[in-house]
Each structure stands twice: as C-alpha cells, then as structure tokens.
C-alpha cells in the first residue's frame, strides 16, 4: 500500500474535540458530502466519520468474577439461570458465552439472554458445584445475584463486527432454519447481515486507523479493540475484531439476547467505531456506498462448510436492501438480520459523544493484520461415509412388475425398500412395504401406479450425519445411493446405520 500524505494526526483531532470544533459526520453524512462536494473537499473538511452496526454476533461473551463466599468454593461447574458458565478458570472466575443454551429452556433462552438480563439489572440465579478442597471446603452454592454484586463483568468478544457477510438463500424443497434465519424453499427468499455503508470495517477498508487499542462504542458503553477477531480474513475483505468493554457501563438497548428458531441462541451487539480521516484514501473508503460493497448469495440448502456452499449470485448491499433480488427468472424478497436502524442510531450516538467532548480517539498500538489465512479443519481420521455402510447388493424391480410379485420379493429377502429401475437402468421410483400393503388394500396392481416418483437419494461420498438427518427430515427409513447418471449403486437404511454404529464412534 502506498504511503499517503497525512492530513491530520489523531492528536490534532483530539485537540479539536477538546476545543469543541472537530468536524464529525456519520458515515451516511460523509457519503452525501463526498457526492455533493467530491472526496478531496470531504477529506479536507472532515475530521472523524462515525460508523455503526447492530447484528447477531455469536462469538461474544462475558468474563465474570463472583467474589468469594464464606466458606469459600472452588467452582468446578456453574450456571446462571440454568445456562452453563465455563469454569476452567480460577475458583470464582467464569466465562459465559452468548451461544450457551439453558439446560431447562433450550433454544428459548441462553447466554445472550443472561447477558441482556445482567445488563438490565435483573436478578439472576447462580448455582455452582465443587468437589471441595482443604482451602475451598464448600461444595454447593445456590443464590441470587445482580450485575452490581459482581466484581467484574467484562464483555470480551472473540469475533465481532464482520467487515461484510455473505447472504443466504435455499435451493431445496423445504424450509430450512439457519443462523441466517428462516430460508424458504426453492430460493423463496434471501437474508443478509451487516450494515454495509455504515459497517465499521468497511469504512476503513485497509485498516489504516483501526487496530489494537482503538477506543469504540460497545454495547452502549466504551470499549476497546484488543486485536484481530477469530477467522479474520482480510485479503477477501472479511476482517473481524476482538473487542472488550465493561459490561457494567453498557445498556440492554445495544446488547440483546436472541433466539434463532431451530438453530440456537446468540447476542445482538451494537458496535460503533470512529474513523479519523487521516488521509484521502481513508476518506474515500469512509465514503463507500452500499452499491460499492458486494457479497455473494450462497445456497444454505447444501450442508457443506461455509466456503463450499454454492455461490448463487453476487450482489451489492444496495440491491439486498431494496428488498427484492432477482435469482434466475424469479424476483425474491430479501431482508436483513442485522438492524440498519440501530446501526444508524449507534453512528449518531458516537457522533454526539465526540461532539460533546466525552469521547476521544486513540491511536492504535498495532494495526490489524492485513494478511491471514483462514483454514478449514482437516479430518485426518477415516470417517464413515455412505459407501462404508450401504448395501451394494440391491434388490430392485421394474415399473411394470406386479404388486404381488414385488411383495413376495420383500418377504423373501426380508427388506422394506424396493428401488424401481427404468429400462435405461436409471432410478425412476421407490416402493416400500407400506406402499405395497396399501396397494393390496386398494386393489392396485402395477408398481408404476403406486411407486413414489420423487425419490430422496444419497451419494456414496456423503457423511452419515448428513444422510441420517435427511432421512429424519423426510420421515423415511431408507435411501437408494445413486451416481451422477442416477444409476443405483446401493441402498442405505436406518437399520444399516444403527447396526454399524452400535458400540463405536463415527470414526473407524
């Protein structure tokens, strides 16, 4: 990256804030100014651009210190409102993660909700267990606490504030419930996350001003960036941040527990970062618009790892925010999961703090890394795949076989599923023992009249977990295994899976 002439230093900006004559614009106002007067003028006039985002940030949580009871306890297990707290720390320190689920309320309540309740000043039930030691003899605690009773409650979020995030859709024929919300069948909708043109890391795209030690708006209080976030992936423009702040200063307006239906719980976190306009390049990224920031729409119907979910289309935040996206020849509704309204509010609150002289900028002690590899997890042990479990000897029928003949085959072989093969050797249907019983009861005679034509299938290389879930979702007990040409290679049933897995792990 070329060195740019510094137009103003952080120290100079802070002097202006102290004097009350700093020029502070929200990112939306900066965009307007750059459009009306050009980027050079905007860079010359503006000292600070404020940003904001308010979205679900799963890698969030809070370090807690409960203080010592008398007699004292070395807590080995601990729960707040039945949500487990990580206790692999000192006696009365713990970490409550946003995605931890309540052991009694499941998806309804979890770590994110406890954090919101703590911030709201509500009473929280504390339960803890221990094995008891000479120095910590107590073995059990049941009491009630509020945030005021805690010595420290420090929000430390390992990954917040994604620069951008890929949007989601669903190609399959059923509704799926994901961390990207409810996705309707057959590309029925698109969901996306991130504040785009207000998003902090989008506004200092090259991380020239944001780094370790940057003071920020966090959850309604003051926080700091403590480094790159986990999965920080700057080369592709998917940077992340690790942040910390004192939970006791924060507000439930900007920290909200959330449940994603049939997925899990999380925490909505409000983050706002001031961007000092130190040079013209920073000014131009601070003026980036929604129509200049693009992401991929990925197919969440394919249960692969994130980077392998097929890309359906590339779109800008401007297109997504319009509420309609064209996929193929279809116009489908799109909507956000993060709140643009709240993101805007956060950028305005931060602006107000700076103008009132109660928030000063900091110079980072180290910049965020601009290069990082984001690697997938390699599975080095051999795992069971469909090919290891399926039966290769498949009893099949053809569409013109009689119902009675087919029933005899099932009885003779002791099986429940009969794939039906067409004259070209391809799978055309499936018949189960239940289909046959019903056919006989209704006086039907030919398989082609009774077979299921839309057959749910499996592939040889698929994982057992994926295939077992598919069977459960369709409420069926067996799948023909097919190749690309739809030839049947084998059959896999719930019986085969349970037999293979009894007494062993999923690895072999």
């Amino acid at each position, binding site marked *: 990256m070329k060195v740019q002439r510094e137009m103003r230093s952080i120290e100079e900006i802070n002097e202006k804030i102290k004097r009350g004559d700093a020029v502070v614009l929200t990112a939306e106002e900066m965009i307007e100014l750059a459009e009306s007067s050009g980027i050079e003028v905007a860079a010359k006039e503006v000292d600070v651009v404020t940003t904001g985002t*308010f979205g679900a940030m799963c890698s969030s949580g809070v370090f807690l210190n409960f203080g010592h009871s008398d007699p004292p306890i070395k807590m080995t297990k601990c729960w707040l409102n039945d949500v487990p707290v990580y206790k692999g720390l000192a006696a009365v320190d713990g970490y409550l993660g946003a995605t931890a689920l309540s052991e009694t309320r499941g998806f309804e309540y979890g770590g994110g909700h406890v954090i919101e309740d703590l911030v709201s000043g509500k009473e929280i039930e504390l339960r803890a267990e221990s094995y008891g030691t000479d120095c910590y003899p107590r073995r059990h605690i049941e009491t009630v606490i509020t945030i005021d009773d805690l010595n420290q409650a420090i929000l430390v979020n390992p990954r917040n504030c994604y620069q951008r995030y890929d949007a989601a859709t669903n190609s399959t024929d059923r509704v799926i419930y994901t961390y990207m919300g409810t996705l*309707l069948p057959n590309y029925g*909708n698109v*969901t996306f996350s991130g504040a785009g043109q207000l998003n902090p890391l989008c506004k200092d795209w090259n991380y020239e001003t944001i780094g370790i030690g940057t003071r920020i708006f966090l959850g309604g209080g003051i926080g700091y960036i403590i480094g790159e976030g986990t999965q920080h992936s700057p080369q592709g423009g998917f940077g992340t941040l690790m942040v910390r702040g004192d939970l006791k200063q924060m507000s439930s307006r900007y920290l*909200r527990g959330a449940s994603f*239906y049939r997925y899990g719980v999380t925490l909505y976190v409000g983050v706002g970062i001031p961007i000092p306009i130190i040079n013209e390049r920073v000014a131009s990224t601070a003026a980036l618009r929604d129509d200049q920031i693009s992401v991929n729409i990925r197919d969440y119907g394919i249960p692969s790892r994130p980077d392998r979910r097929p890309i359906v289309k590339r779109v800008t935040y401007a297109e997504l925010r319009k509420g309609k996206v064209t996929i193929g020849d279809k116009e489908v*509704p799109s909507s956000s999961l993060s709140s643009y*309204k709240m993101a805007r509010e956060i950028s305005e609150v931060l602006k107000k703090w700076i103008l009132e002289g109660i928030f000063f900028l900091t110079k980072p002690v180290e910049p965020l890394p601009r290069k990082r590899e984001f690697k997938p997890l390699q599975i080095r042990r051999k795992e069971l795949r469909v090919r290891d479990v399926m039966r290769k000897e498949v009893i099949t029928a053809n569409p013109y076989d009689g119902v009675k003949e087919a029933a005899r085959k099932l009885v003779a072989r002791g099986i429940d599923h009969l794939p039906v093969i067409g004259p070209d050797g391809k799978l055309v249907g499936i018949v189960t023992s239940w289909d046959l019983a019903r056919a006989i009861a209704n006086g039907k005679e030919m398989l082609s009249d009774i077979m299921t034509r839309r057959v749910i299938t499996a592939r040889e290389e698929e994982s057992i977990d994926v295939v077992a879930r598919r069977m459960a979702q369709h409420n069926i007990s067996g799948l023909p295994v097919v190749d690309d040409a739809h030839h049947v290679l084998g059959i896999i049933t719930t019986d085969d899976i349970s037999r293979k897995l009894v007494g062993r792990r999923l690895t072999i």
Partner: protein
Amino acid sequence: MRVRLIYSPHVVEKPVLAEIILKTGLPINILEAKVNAQKGELVVSIPSSGKKLEEILTMFREAGVQVQKFMRALQIDYERCISCGACISPCPTQALRFGSDWTLEFDEEKCIACKTCVNACPVKAITLP
C-alpha cells in the same frame, strides 16, 4: 379480514362456508379449523372489506354461525423489536416491511396469520393473540 366462525351443534353439519363461497365467488381461506360432531370453530380470512364484508358476515349470522372479528392480527412489541428485518423476507404475503426510517412496519390487511414471523423473530417481539 380475519374472523372466527363458531358453529353450534345444530349448524355444524351444514356446509355453510362452502355455500357462501359458491354464492359470493370469494376465495375464503381457512387458516385454522377445529371441528367435530358437536361443534366447530374456524378462523378464516375473507378477502373483502367495507359494506361487502358486512354483507358476507351477515350471511354467516343468518345461517346460524356466530362471527367474531379479529381486531388485530399480529402484535408487535416495539419495546423489544429491534427492526432487524428477520421477519420480512420469510413472510409469504409481504405483510411486513421497513418504513422510510428503517423501522419495521406491519400491514394488517395482508396478514394471513401463518405465524412464520413469530418464529422468525430473534427477539420474540411478535405475538399472535
């Protein structure tokens, strides 16, 4: 307009709804049905308003069916709602949308009470009474 139709034992076996659909030609949609030999309760959506709607409701009453109007389909608790938008694109009838300041807005007329949004809301701000 969503209404609840309550059938007493002496009308439960009569095809009141079917007759009114045939007579008016309106595609009245059944959203919920609890019917047995003794009594029946249907929640239906009638795509009509004003005088025409009142005429249809009178037809039900004259056939011996009790009619209760729903005054509001959904309740959005704006204290809890964060205007994130998670409910908007899953809504099958586009009854939810953003206003000009990105606040969530609800169009009662379009709602068919399918509850998709109730589940999709991450902060449990939407209820269907």
